Each structure stands twice: as structure tokens, then as C-alpha cells.
């Protein structure tokens, strides 16, 4: 994962923003009042997005920092891990068992997750690279809670490295099911009662925002981040994207959003 640390780039100039800050703001705009959100390990961006939404449009949003099990942590100042003790400045603490059970039974509306690869139909791989699971070319972290996230209402995928190697035609290993092999297979799985949620709805990368076409469930470009061209996104994607006629620029963080975000992230982690 590409990550620029605060030490490397020094203090931020007032008007500029980091790509992680843009991603957090875009994520935050997806959250609705009254929803319950789950975030996983190393998810500083996702947790910041949830807190930002709570402080802006969604005061009744509930979010759980996976690992520590903290419900609605007061993040300020944001730390790298959702498992840190610092998250326990919060409203309640769930055990891992209670949290996972409530995710599996559909009590969490939305989940942020990422992976080593994402494919055309939103399937995500966090397990391994290569075709033989017994002898992987690269052994990744593993499945965590990803395999049963299709039970969750909505999934938002974030990828910090938009590259043909990470945006692939078909994932080497389907850790988190997305729309499987496309619209038809998704429909079949729904009829078989294997899916209760609506699947992944959005992919946010360091270059663009993408979603999935209603019928075919194939990935479609929604907007490009400021300073990024459609051609760049095409070149960084390992399969043919659906490109609408008009591709707007991702709305950059408003001053107010950035101000609150930096209050949450007072140590400049993002």
C-alpha cells in the first residue's frame, strides 16, 4: 500500500490536501444518518470518514472500530490502528465474537474494505497472488471478515494504489465476493438465498471514483480526482472500464470538511 507519512512531506500547506484526505471526504459523503458502519484493521481513512460524517451530515451514524470493538470512538487524534487502546475512548465496547455475529446477521449496514486486487465485478482478493493457493506467488494477509460481507447492506471498496496489477480482469482468489461473474451470476446467487445485501456499491481509488453498471454489474467510472485524466485511469486499470459520456471531476474537499477532518486527524496521519 502506498502511504506517504507526515514526516516525509512535512506540514501541510493550508489549501492543499492529501489524497488520503480526499478519499476520506469522498467516503464520508456516502454515509447516511442512522446507519451502522463497520471498519477493519489499519483503517484510519475509513474511521476518519465515519467520524467526519458524524460531525457533519450524519450525527446518528454508528461506527465500530473492528479489532478493539469500540463503538463510536472519539478518534481525535486519529491513530493508525482500529485495534489500538486509544479507540476505547468510546460509547461501548463489543467483543470480537459479538461484533462478528452482528455483522453476519446483517446488523451492520455498510462496510469499508480493501484488498490486494479488485476485479471488473467488484470481487476483492486479500488472500494471495498466483493460481495455486498451496504455492502462492505472494501470500497476503488473508480473508479476515471479508468472505461474508456480501451479507452486509452495502460495501465500499477503497484501493490506495490504482494500478493494472491491482485492478484486474479476474481476481486470483475471491476473498470477498462482489458481483461474482457479473449480473446474471449475481441474480442466480440472490435466488439461491446466498446473498442478502446489495453488494459493493462504490470503489474509491487514489485516481478515481467508480461504481457498477446496474445490469451487467461491470465496473464504471464515476469521476476522476482533480488533476487526473480519464486516459490515466484507463491506463491504470487492467480491464475495460465502462466510461460514461461525461466524466466529472471528483468534488474536492470543502474547507469546512477539511477543517473538521484535520481536527479529527490532529497528528497528520492521513
Amino acid at each position, binding site marked *: 500500500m502506498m502511504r506517504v507519512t507526515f514526516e516525509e512531506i512535512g506540514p501541510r500547506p493550508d489549501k492543499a490536501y492529501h489524497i488520503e484526505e480526499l478519499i476520506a471526504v469522498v467516503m464520508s459523503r456516502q454515509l447516511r444518518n442512522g446507519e451502522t458502519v463497520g471498519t477493519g484493521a489499519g483503517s484510519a481513512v475509513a474511521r476518519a470518514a465515519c467520524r467526519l460524517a458524524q460531525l457533519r451530515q450524519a450525527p446518528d451514524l454508528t461506527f465500530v472500530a473492528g*479489532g478493539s470493538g469500540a463503538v463510536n470512538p472519539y478518534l481525535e487524534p486519529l491513530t493508525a490502528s482500529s*485495534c489500538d*487502546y486509544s479507540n476505547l475512548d468510546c460509547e461501548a465496547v463489543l467483543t470480537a465474537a459479538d461484533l462478528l455475529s452482528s455483522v453476519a446477521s446483517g446488523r451492520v449496514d455498510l462496510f469499508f474494505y480493501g484488498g490486494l486486487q479488485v476485479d471488473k465485478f467488484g470481487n476483492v482478493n486479500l*488472500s494471495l497472488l498466483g493460481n495455486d493457493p498451496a504455492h502462492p506467488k505472494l501470500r497476503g494477509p*488473508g*480473508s479476515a471478515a471479508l468472505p461474508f460481507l456480501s451479507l452486509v447492506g452495502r460495501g465500499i471498496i477503497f484501493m490506495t494504489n490504482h494500478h493494472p496489477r491491482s485492478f484486474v480482469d479476474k481476481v486470483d482468489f475471491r476473498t470477498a*465476493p462482489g458481483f461474482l461473474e457479473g449480473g446474471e451470476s449475481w441474480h442466480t446467487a440472490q435466488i439461491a438465498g446466498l446473498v442478502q445485501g446489495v453488494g459493493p456499491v462504490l470503489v474509491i481509488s487514489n485516481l478515481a471514483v467508480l461504481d457498477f453498471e446496474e445490469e451487467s454489474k461491470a465496473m464504471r467510472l464515476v469521476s476522476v480526482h482533480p488533476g487526473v485524466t480519464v486516459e490515466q485511469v484507463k491506463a491504470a486499470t487492467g480491464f475495460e472500464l465502462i466510461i460514461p459520456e461525461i466524466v466529472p471531476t471528483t468534488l474536492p474537499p470543502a474547507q469546512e470538511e477539511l477543517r473538521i477532518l484535520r481536527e479529527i486527524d490532529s497528528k497528520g496521519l492521513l
Partner: protein
Amino acid sequence: MSQPSENQEAIWCDLNDAIPLVYFDNTRAILRRARRYLQTSCVGGISKSAGRPINTTNSVLNMMKGALVSNEQSGGNLPPKRPINLEINVAPYPTPVPAPPPLPAAPEDGRTSKQMTLAEAIERYVPDGVESLALGGMHLQNNPMALVRELIRQKKRINSLITSPAASLSADLLIGAALVEEVITSYFGFEHLGLAPAYRRFCQEGRLKVHELDELTLLLALRAGAAGQPFAALPPSIALSDVVTATPHFYTPVQDPFTGKTVLAAPPLRPKVALVVCQQADKRGNAIFKGSTFTDREMILAAETTILQVEQIIPTSQLTRNPMPVTVPGYLVKAVVPAPFSCHPTACHRFYNYDEAHLKEYLELATTAEGFEAYLQKYVLNQGEVEYLGKTSLTRG
């Protein structure tokens, strides 16, 4: 900076994260007394923070500092009502960490103490080639590092290593030391710091068998083990993931007797030994988690033998007065090993944070077999925990 003498109560405080680096049995008493002292006798010290709860070590220490300063500045107009024998050494790091003071002898009430040394607990309760061993903690938190380092010193081989849903250093060290035959895990990495180097190396070289499960299946299998169930029935959506085909033994199709549909079932997990960290316990193994419990309680309940690594031994009388936080009863525990600071370099919830510099050193070294061996020689083999802690940033001046 001076060493604390026996009758001088001292707290050394790392002001960067304000967690006392040296705990004495009476640390809590000092903080309590300091709090009372501030509330009763030094107005200047608390005026700024009045109205805010004084419930963290951090704020108490800051206030004590403020109190002492404002007392001086007041020109002695605010003399303490009663003298307090307290010294705060404000220095980035103390040198060196003294060995924890010997614990008082057990009261003569006829009950057996399970407290023992690290070497004794591992020698007695972990047979070589143990069938299955579960590791508590999660990610970079509460890894039972002292117990794991001792396993490596005693070269205990493990057939099946069961990790918490998110494994990191403790499991990676055992795998790197070539002690593990197969691993049952659901996530293995160092979060934002990167992938697990020894795990990755062993997998890619085909030297380690991996049973990859999703978190929920791992947890339900442990619960089934704890409850004596024949198997754990899994929620249907898991069938869509490739973990099902990669780890078929843990996702076996069975017929739902109520609907007739095919569902997946996982076998129960009953670890022979579980190594778990609790912040406090008495000598009988009645234990208190002072932070998140992760999947530690599920492991303790499923395991045949549990060894607890604890930060503080507390008298039984202290927990019987308020037993609600005691979520591990002693009858589930075989051994209690006091090992303060020994989750290092991982964190211990509420007590200390992880040592990122040390973890990065490990991540760099462990990418090669030679580097890993060098790490073991430097930090694990031929030394005890006190010597190990002496080499860490806890004591670097």
C-alpha cells in the same frame, strides 16, 4: 536520574505517552493519593481542568506536575494540608528498568497458587510437538510475547497453530523459528506496517500448510469447541468466497435438518494449550481484562490448558470486592505468569503502546532466514525477559 530507594515512592513517566514505565505494587495507591491531594490541597493545580474527570493516568500526572509548579509559584501560600512523599521524574526514558519487586508470599489459606515463572509454565504445560496451540491478542495488541519467546527458547514444536482472527508478531516468530507444522488463521499481517515476513516466506517456499478461514468461522469453531458441539453451522453467504474451496475441511457441506438445504459446517476447535494475556490476575488465575478482550475469552473457554501472561498480580481480596470485571475464572487457568511489559514490542491495552521502531526492525530483518536468525540471537535466545527489556526502547536513554 536516581534509582528509587525502597521507602521512596517514585513514578517515572514518559511524557510522550504518559504511561508509567515502572509499576510498583503501590503505583495505584500513589495515583489515588495524588488525586486526593490535588483535590483537597492545591487549588492552582486543578483550576484549569476543573470539571473534567480525573480518570486517566495521563491527566493525573499532568495535574501533579501542574500542582507542584503552581505550589512553587504561589510562594508557599498554598502549603499542602498533609505532606506527600512523591517524586515525579520528568525524563523521556528511565534507565534502566529495575526488575519487578518480588511478590509477597501467598496467604496461608490452603489454596494452591498457580503463579510460576515463564520457564516453569512452558516446561510444565506445553509438551514438545503439542497437537494444537492457540495464541491470544489481536493485530499488534496483547500478543503473549514472553510466553512465545520462551517457547522458542525451549524449542517446543507445534503441530497446529491456531491464531486469533488477526495474527501478527507472536505467530510470525514461531513460524520463522520453524516450530510450526500448520497454521489455522484468518488474517496474518502487521496492519499498516506491512505483511508478515516469516509467514510469507514460509508459505511461498511451500514449508507451511495454511488453513485459511474467515474470522467468523474461526470464532464459531472455537465456540463449538467450548460448548462441546459436534460442529458449527455457518451463515450461507460464506459459500461464495474462495476460502471455501481453499480450506474444504473447515467448510464441509451438510444438510440443514430443518429446511433440507445444503449449508456449510466447520469442525470444532479445541486447542490443547492457549496462551493469553490478561492485564491483571490473582495467583489462582482469576483474571481481569483492562481493555478489549479480542477472541481471548473464546480461546480460554475452548482450550484444555490456559497459560496467562499478566502485567500485574493482584491480591484476591482486591477482586472479590468488585468481581464484575473478572471475566476469566481461575478454574479455567492452569498457570499465571507475571511478566510486566512483556507484550513488547506489541502493545498491552491500557498499559503501553506498541514499539513501532522495534517492529520495523523485525520486519526488515525477518524478510530473510539469516536476518530472522540474527533477530532471534539478538532478542530471544540465551537471555531472559529482563535482559530482553533492557535492550528495548523502554530503557534507551
